[in-house]
């Protein structure tokens, strides 16, 4: 089963990369108010069903993929067609 994890800097956490990109976009003439940079992790999870896969990916996030002090995460599962 395919899973995608989106890791984002938490609200209120300084994101210097996002700030640099925002200022570059403005220099290019785009009207943007805020840019935040996170990370995408695409996974192929070996699990019998969606609930098991989600539980596994949640553990991966808690243990390794995100640091809860500064990052939040979202999990998207793509179930294979039946």
């Amino acid at each position: 089963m395919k899973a995608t994890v989106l890791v984002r800097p938490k609200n209120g956490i300084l994101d210097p990369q996002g700030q640099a990109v925002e200022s570059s976009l403005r220099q290019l003439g785009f009207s943007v108010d805020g840019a935040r940079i996170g990370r995408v992790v695409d996974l192929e999870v070996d699990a019998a069903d969606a609930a098991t896969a989600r539980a596994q990916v949640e553990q991966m996030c808690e243990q390794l993929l995100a640091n809860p002090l500064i990052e939040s995460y979202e999990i998207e599962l793509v179930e294979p067609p039946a």
Partner: protein
Amino acid sequence: MTSPQPRVGVLRFPGACDDRDALWALAAFDAEAVFIWHTEQELPDLDAVVLPGGFSYGDYLRCGAIGRFAPAMEAVVDFANGGGLVLGICNGFQILCEAGLLPGVLRRNESLTFVCRDVPLVVERSDTPFTSRCEEGQTLTIPVKHGEGNWYVDDDGYAELDARRQVVLRYAEPVNGSRNDVAGVVNERGNVMGLMPHPEHAVDPLLGSADGALILSSLVDSARARFLTTV
């Protein structure tokens, strides 16, 4: 050898680059310094452990995030939980934070640029095993060289650790955006310390400063005191 030699282990991760400097400096301060390969599941008999600077396992994902899961790190966590002395320098500090042995996390520098220069540091505490040769309020000159030294905890976390006096070293000027200019912290128990500056690169006047010697020789003193109580 003029006095009993404590044994200090220096962890070697793939991607470490300051392990030899740390080993050399510890030996210069009369410790028996030994390398510990990252795959070791048990530590030999040690009086202290140093986690050196570098880019363990390439520092992918987040700095120190993968290094903390090295087999030898599990042994270091047990060693620290048993009261053993552990000093993390730069990447070592990042690993100790990721492992939960020290509070906070090291983020990308506010400037987004790699900082590599001598910085002035103020000693906030001289009553730790890592700063006993320093004086409170003393300014040390020690180099930093990092892209991710911007230490962060939230407001409540900072208030707690400030009340417990866990900040040991502070930058005397802004360096990387670190919260309240924190450069080095200890855990609540006082046996684990991490710092971004590199004391092992400042152990001889020829290197521009010998102030790092105060920190490493404090560690060797403390390790020796522990060694003597166990023989």
